[in-house]
């Protein structure tokens, strides 16, 4: 890490000679990055810190804990193709991981969209699983089975599906090497393109289990919709299809299972999520349901901080986040930021706040970690602490306390509604939205006015 003297920008590559932002020369040797290194503890006027047990419960539910609808999904036969559809917190990933456990003798592959989720699932799974991101897995598998490199577009990571289709159609099916195991379990299956599923059949993958939620699509143009996914998983082409027949009949209707009940969020958060889900207006996936018997927790809060007011500015917020982490040492607190720049700002602000409030802490310093998907970090989910990450990478994870940072920079559009739906449903206990109250906040119109659903603290 080298920090540019001229503009202060941090350049990730140590061998870089010129700042990629301002173009000025960089110092010859890499300086220690202030953001990545915890500030040295202030020695004076601190009371002795007491170590505390921060371990939190982080394991799969046992088979006995599954609900009826989850049971139904869990007890599906090993062979065949299945589509599990359910909103956030309904236990899709849990079922997928339990299924991996059941299939462990058949050496199934587990695929998900990003590395963080892969790491999360690996940590959660009781057995050792072979898991990778779908894109890496596909490139390797394609090369192994066809003997040819996977064709990519100009950006090296993006697969050229037209070329893939052409290569496979030119090879004699007998010459395609059989897969190591025909079993696949895919989480967040809506984010993979249709072409990926089409090709899976040609490569000999017979038994595919896909967990998906069409309300949580990352890149709408590159992902699959419900119809496309069902159509792609359909095994034998059927000849007679009338127009009146629902599209699901193409596929064995028994093979589509929907989960409705939310088990992750408390009732207060679930109600807010249901409110946002109405805005998505997406009939492909059901919105999660909540019932009165659910545990309740504090109502989510919309908090407007004021950079001009020293009693209400971002530093104050960060100080109270650290104090919260100190009072609840087993909590994992997630701070979700829209951009990488904002994420780095929050990390810096938290580090500064820690120095200021260290004398008020009851326990030793809480962990403050910045998650960067590109750095290949593997954070520890079994310990409480504060994780700062971007909104896009929070999918599939869960936190006890979620702060959604600076919502004034989101536009009020469908893509952001989906992102909010994902972020809100990460919270297992509490949820706070932060915004800069000196700026207009377009997306606040989407949030409910009812103070029972959301407390507004301007």
């Amino acid at each position, binding site marked *: 890490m080298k920090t540019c003297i001229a503009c202060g920008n941090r350049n990730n590559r140590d061998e870089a000679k010129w700042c990629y932002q301002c173009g000025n020369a960089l110092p010859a040797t890499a300086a220690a990055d202030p953001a990545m290194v915890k500030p040295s503890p202030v020695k004076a006027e601190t009371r002795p810190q007491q170590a505390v047990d921060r371990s939190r419960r982080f394991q799969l539910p046992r088979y006995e804990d599954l609900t009826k609808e989850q049971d139904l999904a869990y007890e599906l036969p090993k062979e065949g193709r299945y589509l599990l559809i359910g909103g956030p917190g309904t236990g899709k990933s849990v079922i997928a991981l339990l299924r991996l456990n059941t299939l462990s003798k058949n050496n199934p592959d587990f695929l998900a969209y990003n590395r963080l989720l892969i790491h999360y699932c690996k940590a959660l799974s009781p057995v050792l699983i072979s898991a990778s991101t779908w894109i890496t897995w596909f490139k390797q598998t394609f090369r192994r089975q066809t003997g040819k490199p996977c064709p990519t577009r100009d950006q090296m990571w993006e697969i050229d599906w*037209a070329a*893939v*289709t*052409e290569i*496979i*159609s*030119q*090879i*004699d*099916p007998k010459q395609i090497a059989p897969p190591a195991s025909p079993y696949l379990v895919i989480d967040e299956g809506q984010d993979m393109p*249709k*072409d990926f599923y*089409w*090709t899976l*059949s*040609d490569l000999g993958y017979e038994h595919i289990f896909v967990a998906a939620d069409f309300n949580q699509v990352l890149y709408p143009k590159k992902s699959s919709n419900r119809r*496309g996914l069902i*159509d*792609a998983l*359909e095994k034998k*082409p*059927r*000849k*007679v*299809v009338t127009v009146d027949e629902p599209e699901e009949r*193409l596929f064995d209707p028994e093979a589509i299972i929907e989960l409705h009940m939310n088990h992750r969020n408390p009732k207060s958060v679930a109600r807010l999520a249901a409110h946002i889900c109405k805005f998505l207006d997406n009939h492909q996936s059901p919105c999660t349901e909540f019932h009165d018997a659910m545990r309740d927790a504090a109502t989510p809060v919309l908090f407007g901080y004021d950079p001009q007011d020293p009693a209400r500015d971002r530093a104050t917020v960060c100080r109270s986040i650290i104090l919260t982490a100190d009072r609840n040492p087993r909590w994992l607190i997630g701070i979700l930021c829209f951009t990488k720049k904002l994420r780095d700002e929050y990390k810096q602000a938290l580090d500064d706040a820690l120095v200021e409030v260290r004398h008020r802490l009851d326990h030793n310093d809480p962990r403050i970690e910045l998650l960067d998907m590109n750095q290949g970090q593997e954070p520890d989910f079994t310990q409480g602490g504060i994780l700062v990450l971007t909104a896009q990478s929070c999918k599939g994870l869960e936190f006890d306390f979620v702060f959604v940072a600076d919502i004034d920079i989101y536009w009020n559009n469908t893509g952001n509604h989906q992102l909010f739906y994902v972020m809100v449903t990460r919270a297992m206990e509490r949820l706070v939205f932060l915004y800069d109250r000196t700026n207009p906040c377009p997306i606040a119109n989407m949030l409910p006015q009812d103070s029972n659903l959301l407390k507004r603290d301007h």
Partner: protein
Amino acid sequence: MANPAIDAQCRAHRIGEITVKESISVRFSHLLGFAGVGSIVRSEDWLYTLIDTSKWPQHSFLPYVERVRLSLGIDEELHEPPQARLGQNGYVQGATLPGIRFPSWMRCRKCGLMHWQWWNRVKERDDWPRCSDSSCRTRLDQFPWVMIDSNGRMNDVPWHWLLHHGGPCKEDTGNPHLRLIDNRSAGAKPPGPSKRWTLSCKRCGARRDLSEKDAEIDNPQFFRHQPWRSDNPTTDMDPAEETQIVDVSDPRLYSVPSCSALVIPPESRIQRGSVLDRLYCNRNLLDPIRKAKHLTNAVIKQAAHGLNCTSGEIREAAEEIDKGFPLYGQIFTPGQLLEDEFKAIVTPFDPAEGEDFVTFHRTTAWRQLAEHCAEQRQLIRLVDRLIEVKRLREVRVFKGFSRLGVETVVPPDIDGTANWLPAIDLFGEGLFFSLDDTILQVWEEQAGFAGRIETLQRRYTPSGLPKRSELWLPGGRIRPRFMLLHTLSHMLIRQIEASAGYPAASLKERLYCGESMAGILIYVAVPDIVGSLGGLSELSQPNRFLALLASTLEKAEWCSLDPVCSEHQGQGPFLLNFAACHGCALIPEPACLFGNNLLDRTFVRGDEGLGILSIAEQARRSLA
């Protein structure tokens, strides 16, 4: 323009900091005719030339023309040119074809100073290029002379070289120094020699009198292939036989051999909108299926997703296409085109809705008419089939163009490497009838024809026509029945113009002349809109057609220029017409297949002096 679909040609040029595009509307049928690639197109103020097809922005595959392609001997695919529309705000929406301003030379109206591409010097949007001479400042005009050769090339006139022939005075297009004075204009000095123009150089004082015909351009370095091409293929081309400077309105500048065919069953009967049809027409989806050695899941699913249908339907459609849809292995040879069309027209069938070729046979009603009109029985005997063509689809193909009236055809992409040719669909209606073969055979035997046919044949063979008309006159052999059909069809078109409501220029003839085949299809076919008004097919009602035919034959008897016209021993290009002039048998050029050549009223009305019976008289005798 009443035509909703227009095509626009644009030329972007920069004025100061802005790029200005001008668009010209050209009808589709003109784009494949006289306003095609390499032709000179006029806008309100400028002359342009249309750039070749390799630079066309997009073009879409034209389906169901396999028979047309095979019969016309075309190996390339046929593609439709892009269409643009004029939006309400005056902006052109959609892809347009590229063109450039040409000729590049501009001449001052007043002082005759020549400027090279002076429109690039204009600074203001609405300004006009003006003379660079500070005392003159008169408006400049594009000077409408171009240099063409028999290899089909076209270029600017090398004015500087014409005057200096490579002397020490070097060309400098940035500083205009050549003057072209019109000796006949008012105020000019009385011409010394008989030449109209005087070219002089301001710098070295060289002078030369010249006219259009003084093109002694033997220096090949001036020839790029076409104005928009930067390469000079002179080295690998045969030297041109003839090079000329012509005015842009000279008909020798540009000509396009006509190349069209009707779409007939089975291709006209294909049900549009089915999965098979949609897959066949969508090359992006069909190509992976065709290329695939094994129909993999991904290939099928891709197509099914694209067409929003099931994989089963795609598999079925792919099998059908594999079996040879839409022609299923029928073999067509180039010579067969007209025979097939003739057969399709005279064979009755039950058309379904949405077909592209619909006929209605009126022959029975025609024969019954004989009972009521005893005095016209010979005409009813003469015409053995009368058919209303309610709907037809014609495909017109642009194979290339030629210059100076020679046979060398330059392909639409100049190099001939493209795998497609521009083609368009035309829809319309028509009127078909055929003449009784037994009557014709007896009529053809008459000795009086021999001299006339022999003269025509002698003039026809060296003209440029035989290669273009090979389809209609196989072997370049002219037969009396051809002359009869062609002249009769022209006389009919002139007559129909008065009664059907179509101007003669929009009507077209199609002759079916061969052994035991003698038919005339007169039709109207337009691009852009589906179908036409029905006025022409209405004329095939027996009583109306009888009146039409009778009046046509009557008109053929006399021309207002007789006896000059009927006694003429040869008129028109290559003297290929006898008794046919603007007063009787000539029609607008686009309507005729042979450029208003090979016409003679004598073959219709007979001539007692030559011992030729008229065809009507022959029919009357056969009744007896």
